[in-house]
């Protein structure tokens, strides 16, 4: 299983949409709620269409189009999206209308756009693309299974290029609800220094990170993805270690071959233990970085991590803002992303220099 990343399109709480740059200016947020930095969406979609689109659809479409342009692909052979909560703004709008109007005289538009597959569908509609189209909606596996599907499409030889992305939006309501569930840090903080607090609660964010995967290097590929593995509810750190070691072995690598490990640290002391463990045991000699101090924690944050890994390989650079441990390894050849969502959905993604 191998596919080249030939296009990127990333809308996030950082300035990430310009593919010529790599985290040159970092935005530090004063609270646990990181909103995306939005481009002028009219540059991507016509004014009539854009008016009807909710924020998540706009982010997804603009990030998707940017990735396709970057890869110089007009019609991908498949469009695959992962989203944890889908079109939550339209869902809330329709739910609110049902309650307010007591189930009478409802406008269908928010219902129509509330389905989780709307982003993949809207991209296909704009491209008039009749090819394979799917959407994965499983918490911290949403993006990773979309990526696995995309890798298989390339591997099966049915696709030369696939557009794949992870996208999630937060609304004031979902922020409030998840805050009540105790997921986020309270009060004023500096998000860039996420790991300094050593308290309960993370920070949340949103974004759309899209990629074009290709069967061939177009000469300008960022990196190649060599493997992907998801695992569910591991019992303990030993089980996590076993999964990582088996994964490396299946890819004919050992821990010393991994130059950079991108870990999903989210600053919540209840969930960061697994990362501490692998950092100090399996990967005690690798460069270590994280990323959620830039994008926040959300179901498809793993897509932001893939963007970080691809850029780090292409630029041969680990930006200071995300570096946790710098070693004297001179080259970034192999990168492993290890991320988990609430210690339930764990994933490993292996990338290599082209």
């Amino acid at each position, binding site marked *: 299983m191998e596919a080249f990343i030939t296009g990127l399109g990333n809308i996030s709480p950082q300035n990430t949409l310009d593919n010529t740059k790599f985290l040159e200016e970092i935005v530090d947020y004063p609270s646990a709620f990181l909103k995306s930095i939005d481009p002028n969406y009219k540059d991507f979609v016509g004014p009539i269409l854009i008016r009807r689109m909710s924020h998540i659809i706009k982010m997804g479409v603009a990030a998707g189009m940017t990735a396709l342009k970057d890869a110089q692909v007009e019609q991908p052979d498949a469009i695959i999206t992962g989203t944890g909560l889908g079109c939550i703004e339209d869902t809330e709008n329709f739910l609110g209308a*049902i309650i307010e109007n007591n189930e009478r005289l409802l406008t269908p538009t928010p*219902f129509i*756009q509330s*389905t989780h597959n709307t982003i993949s569908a809207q991209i296909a509609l704009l491209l008039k693309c009749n090819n*394979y189209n799917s959407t994965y909606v499983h918490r911290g596996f949403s993006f990773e299974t979309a990526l696995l*599907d995309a890798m298989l499409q390339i591997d099966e030889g049915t696709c030369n290029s696939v557009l794949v992305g992870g996208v999630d939006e937060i609304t004031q309501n979902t922020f409030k*609800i998840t805050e009540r569930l105790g997921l986020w840090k309270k009060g004023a903080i500096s998000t860039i220094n996420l790991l300094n607090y050593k308290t309960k609660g993370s920070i949340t964010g949103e974004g759309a990170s899209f990629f074009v995967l290709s069967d061939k290097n177009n000469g300008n590929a960022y990196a190649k993805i060599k493997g992907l593995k998801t695992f*569910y509810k591991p019992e303990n750190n030993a089980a996590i270690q076993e999964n990582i070691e088996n994964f490396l072995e299946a890819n004919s690598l050992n821990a010393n071959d991994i130059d950079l490990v991108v870990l999903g640290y989210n600053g919540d002391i209840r969930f960061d233990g697994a990362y501490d463990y692998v950092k100090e045991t399996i990967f005690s000699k690798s460069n270590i970085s994280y990323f959620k101090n830039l994008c926040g924690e959300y179901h498809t944050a793993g897509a932001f991590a893939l963007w970080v890994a691809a850029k780090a390989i292409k630029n041969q650079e680990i930006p200071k803002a995300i570096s946790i441990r710098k070693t004297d390894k001179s080259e970034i050849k192999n990168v492993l992303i290890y991320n988990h969502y609430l210690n339930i959905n764990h994933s490993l993604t292996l990338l290599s220099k082209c």
Partner: protein
Amino acid sequence: MSERVFITGLGMISACGNNVKEVLESILALKTGIADINYLSSVHKNAIPVCEVKLSNEQLGKVAEVENVQNFTRSALLGIIAAKEALKSASIENVNELRTGLISATTVGGMDRSENFYNSFFNDKESGKLIDIVNHDCGDSTERIADALGIKEFVTTISTACSSSANSIMFGARLIKNNILDRVVVGGTDALTRFTLNGFNSLMILDPTGCKPFDENRAGLTIGEGSGFIVIESEKAIKASGKKVYCELTGYGNACDAFHQTASSPDGNGAFLAMEKALKLSGLKADEIDYINVHGTGTSNNDLSEGIAIDRIFSGNVPKFSSTKPFTGHTLGATGGIEAVLSILAIENGIVYPNLRFTEQMKELNFKPNTELITHCEVNHVLSNSFGFGGNNSSLIFSKC
């Protein structure tokens, strides 16, 4: 990619019955599941008929054998019941003996509970019981099923509107063919909710008298709930176990209509492409298909578009076909799973289902659905269609082996 994929287990629950046997018996007795709303709290009670599973959540909890039923959404309970039945029928006792995955599909996830939460929450942001919202997302019901089954190796969820389950079956088959898994429990689950009932009602596509698919006077769909799962296994796995095989999944195809967010194209292009891809993969000629379990929702738009696509694929020589939605209702994310089970039962028992409630042929088509229950016939290859919002169209082909 030469690996074949076999079906070894079936499970379902719908308005027609609480397990495979009951649903099949209802259909053979020509009993529809369409009835007035009983359990769902809605102002449309007694006005819009639905296909509701005839058990309360407490009763479902008992069938599903779960503790603390109040912590489960209705979608999760329905899913656990059907998935457990599928696993049992595949005679799988130790799921971790082989690399076993679960791919579920759903459109609304835990919306049945979120509706209750938001009722309070919209008035006061500090109110609403959190237990009603923590299971909102689509992954929740899947993880509940995975935990009930003990599956750990691979777990995910697909949501492509009304083709969700067909895509979960397709993805499961590909994971087997790519030697990532040995067997997979695939299908989907969706409970009836005010969200979807009112959503389709706002689009004015709910037939107030119950759905009449492929009928000239059809006036919309009947929304239903339920769950359907099948167990698929690799050739290697079934050779090792020597277990009973129902049939083989020989074809699948996924295409996007890319015409409109909700409406199907007038030429049925997405549907045509999905069926064409499935046929190509199966290596079958169109005239080898004995029966089509059509998507056939009963909306003006779907049935016309699907009818035209079928006419194109079969070059006017259309095999027997019917929509089973007048029995089960349109169960949204579960529909591909339930109809996969029905398609497999058609092969297993040599049956072609009647398209209940049909009276008058559509003017635009020169063919009509099968209206009689046909038994003791040879059914070798069945095509099952599932089409959804967003133009997400998928077709599956099941073949006798």
